[in-house]
């Protein structure tokens, strides 16, 4: 039931986002739009409740959302910018030294590992290739493998993703 | 205003909507049980039949029945048609009658024929949808709507051809049919686009009134060629006939019979385009395709007959026979077109043109009944013996007396032997095409006699001949199949005994409808 409510709420918020400018309630919405939106959100929430929320309601906490936004515009964006200049450099020069390495960030939740993997994909020189279903270890394609990192197996995550795991742990666990 | 008037007024829409509603309801009704569903379907088709005959009574009294969908206001702007409209004239309702007869027979037949199969809900749904598509094709007055219903018909029939998926040949035939019909439909759509781009209309009557000798140009020619190529392809006329015997032969018998109707609906499209859509420019040499139609008809006929000779599969043989029959229709109508489109000829021998067209059109319904009956018989034989190769069949007339009689009736009818209906229409064709050239009539007679020989061969090798131990204990086909065959057989005999009655009531208005396109075209600006 809670899952249903939460999912519907998320859907409703999205719907409100989509229909801004339709009327005059709060300057943005019309009453019909809101009613219809509520109806549709209930429907959408009904069919997607068990898929959207798997096990816990951890993400229902607004603090985590705030953190997520901070993460998105803070470290993540910077990492991404760096990544792109890195790729630009490699595109232009053609200097690559690739390899696939294993890291073990120690994140337990699905959402967390997903977030981390996607962050890794979008940040410097790395691309998550595979994930170990049990241990949540990531296999990462690294475009420029540093020799010193290979000494220890699994590779230390700091080489790959910097402070991301910390943030992810804060947000998703 | 009594209920009958309202029904009459709404009947064009209801004829299409009723089987459609039935098709949509079938998955739900199907949960209630086998008999309930079958009765429901028969009721749906009976209601449709009632509506068709109601509409027919109106149309045959000389009206053109039009129906504008959703039009309370602005139905017909002074010069433009905005909404879809149905326009029912003699030919349309003639085809609708054929459709309703065939589908009723098929459904009654399926009651027992399909009893052992899985997926019956879908089967009946698709059957109803196919019927809907055919009704839509023949009733519509809108070119794009025609395309949509063409697609419904072809998709549904394709799925039904592949009904026996455990037979590789059936699936292959369905695939071939699908490719051909899809490309044909896309050609139709392309030429609709060309016509729309040039004339700003999708309504057949409107387009026809705008296609004049003055405006005739390359685009019109291209559209005509595309439309005719596509529709003859879909009707199985000679150069692209390859799909037809496979499809007819591999489908379940109750589907083959409706496929006959579907083919004829495409044929209706050909006639409608030649005579109505291009009715104003029929005397321009590029449009007067009469001779091409005649030659294609002859080729189709001969291919059908000669290929039928070497077949050993019961249903495929009948399918080639059906192909030959298609040739007769094309021959008759093509002769009419040749004479009508020739200004010198048309004055002198107008009556012959009309007679040829009467023959061609009358042959449509006769072909539907004859070939339909033969397919049903073939299905009954298959049902009883689980065998379709003529080499393995034999001597089943001992056990299946009624089926044999029905086959005999169908045999005589399809080869045009006098007391049956096939003779009446073939006579009209022979009696008129010899005017154009005596060779045509000779070949037509020859083809029909060879067809007779082939059918007698089938009769011998399937029904007569020595005993075969395997078929010692087979039983007569179940009652519902016999009823379906009996309906068709009695219609055949009735048509054969009173051909003048049928020609005057059914065929005459249809011929008038296509040979006088002006009334179809002109109701927009005046009249109705």
């Amino acid at each position, binding site marked *: 039931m809670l899952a249903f409510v939460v999912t519907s709420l998320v859907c409703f918020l999205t719907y409100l986002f989509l229909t801004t400018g339709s009327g005059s309630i709060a300057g943005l919405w019309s009453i019909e739009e809101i009613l219809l939106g509520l109806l549709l959100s209930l429907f959408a929430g009904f069919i997607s409740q068990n898929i959207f929320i798997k096990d816990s309601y951890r993400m229902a906490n607004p603090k985590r959302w705030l953190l997520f936004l901070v993460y998105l515009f803070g470290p993540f964006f910077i990492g991404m910018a760096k990544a792109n200049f890195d790729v630009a450099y490699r595109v232009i020069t053609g200097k*690559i030294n690739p390899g*696939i390495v294993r890291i073990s960030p120690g994140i337990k939740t699905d959402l967390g590992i997903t977030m981390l993997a*996607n962050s890794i*994909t979008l940040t410097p020189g790395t691309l998550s290739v595979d994930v170990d279903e049990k241990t949540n270890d990531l296999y990462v394609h690294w475009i420029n493998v540093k020799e010193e990192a290979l000494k220890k197996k699994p590779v230390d995550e700091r080489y790959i993703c910097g402070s991301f795991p910390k943030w992810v742990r804060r947000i998703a666990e | 205003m009594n209920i009958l008037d309202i029904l009459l007024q709404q009947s064009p829409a209801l004829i299409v909507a009723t089987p459609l509603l039935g098709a949509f309801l079938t998955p739900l009704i199907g949960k209630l049980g086998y008999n309930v569903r079958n009765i429901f379907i028969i009721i749906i088709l009976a209601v449709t039949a009632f509506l068709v005959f109601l509409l027919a009574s109106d149309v045959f009294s000389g009206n053109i029945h039009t129906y504008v969908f959703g039009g309370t206001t602005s139905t017909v702007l002074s010069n433009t048609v905005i909404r879809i409209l149905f326009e029912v004239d003699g030919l349309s309702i003639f085809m609708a009658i054929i459709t309703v007869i065939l589908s009723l027979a098929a459904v009654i037949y399926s009651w027992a024929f399909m009893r052992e199969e899985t997926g019956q809900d879908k089967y009946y749904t698709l059957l109803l949808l196919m019927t809907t598509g055919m009704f839509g094709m023949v009733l519509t007055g809108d070119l794009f709507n025609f395309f949509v219903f063409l697609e419904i018909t072809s998709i549904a029939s394709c799925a039904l051809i592949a009904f026996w998926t455990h037979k590789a040949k059936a699936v292959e035939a369905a695939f071939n049919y699908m490719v051909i019909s899809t490309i044909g439909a896309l050609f139709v759509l392309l030429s609709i686009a060309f016509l729309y781009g040039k004339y700003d209309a999708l309504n057949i009557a409107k387009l026809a009134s705008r296609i004049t000798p003055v405006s005739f140009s390359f685009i019109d020619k291209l559209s005509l060629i595309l439309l005719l190529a596509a529709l003859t392809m879909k009707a199985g006329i000679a150069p692209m006939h390859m799909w037809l015997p496979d499809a007819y032969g591999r489908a379940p018998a109750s589907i083959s019979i409706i496929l006959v109707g579907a083919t004829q609906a495409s044929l209706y499209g050909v006639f409608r385009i030649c005579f109505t859509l291009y009715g104003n420019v029929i005397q321009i040499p590029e449009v007067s395709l009469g001779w091409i139609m005649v030659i294609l008809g002859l080729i189709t006929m001969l291919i059908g007959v000669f290929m039928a000779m070497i077949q050993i599969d019961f249903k495929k043989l009948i399918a080639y026979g059906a192909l030959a029959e298609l040739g007769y229709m094309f021959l008759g109508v093509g002769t009419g077109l040749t004479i009508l489109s020739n200004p010198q000829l048309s004055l002198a021998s107008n009556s012959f043109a009309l007679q040829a067209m009467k023959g061609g059109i009358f042959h449509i319904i006769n072909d539907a009944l004859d070939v339909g009956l033969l397919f049903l018989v073939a299905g009954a034989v298959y049902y009883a013996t689980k065998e379709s190769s003529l080499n393995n069949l034999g001597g089943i007339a001992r056990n299946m007396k009624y089926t044999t009689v029905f086959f005999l009736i169908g045999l005589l009818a399809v080869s045009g032997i006098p007391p049956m209906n096939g003779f009446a229409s073939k006579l009209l064709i022979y009696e008129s095409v010899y005017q154009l050239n005596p060779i045509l009539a000779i070949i037509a007679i020859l083809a029909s006699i060879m067809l007779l020989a082939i059918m007698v061969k089938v009769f011998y090798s399937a029904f007569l001949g020595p005993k075969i131990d395997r078929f010692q204990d087979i039983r007569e086909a179940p009652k519902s199949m016999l009823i379906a065959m009996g309906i068709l057989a009695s219609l055949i005999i009735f048509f054969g005994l009173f051909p003048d009655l049928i020609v005057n009531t059914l065929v005459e208005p249809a011929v008038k409808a296509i040979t006088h396109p002006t009334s179809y075209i002109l109701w927009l600006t005046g009249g109705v």
Partner: protein
Amino acid sequence: MIATYIIYLFMGIGIFFMLLGGIGLIRFPDVYTRLHAGTKCTTFGSIFLTLSVVILGLKTWYLGDVNGSVLAIHTIIALAAILITNPTGAHAIARAAHRSGVKPVNAVVDDLEKEEKKK
């Protein structure tokens, strides 16, 4: 006025990375490196391009047209969709490529291959 320049700047950055992604796609030797170019650069480029559109919408809104806000919000939604789906797609391709037997060219190290061999 400043907004216009920011828009142009963002557009310039975005289109630069887009083109870079395209070139990288051609130049790199194997799937994984191409994924680096094809995913990262285009995502980054699209972020900047869409952000420029968002700013344009906000500017329009500021100038008094409600439509602008709608434009901005819809563009943000499009951006969010890109951000969610693009890396996932890249990950899926990389994984599939590795499983289907495409090995990284000139790889220094390949832990995953060892892992697969172990199984």
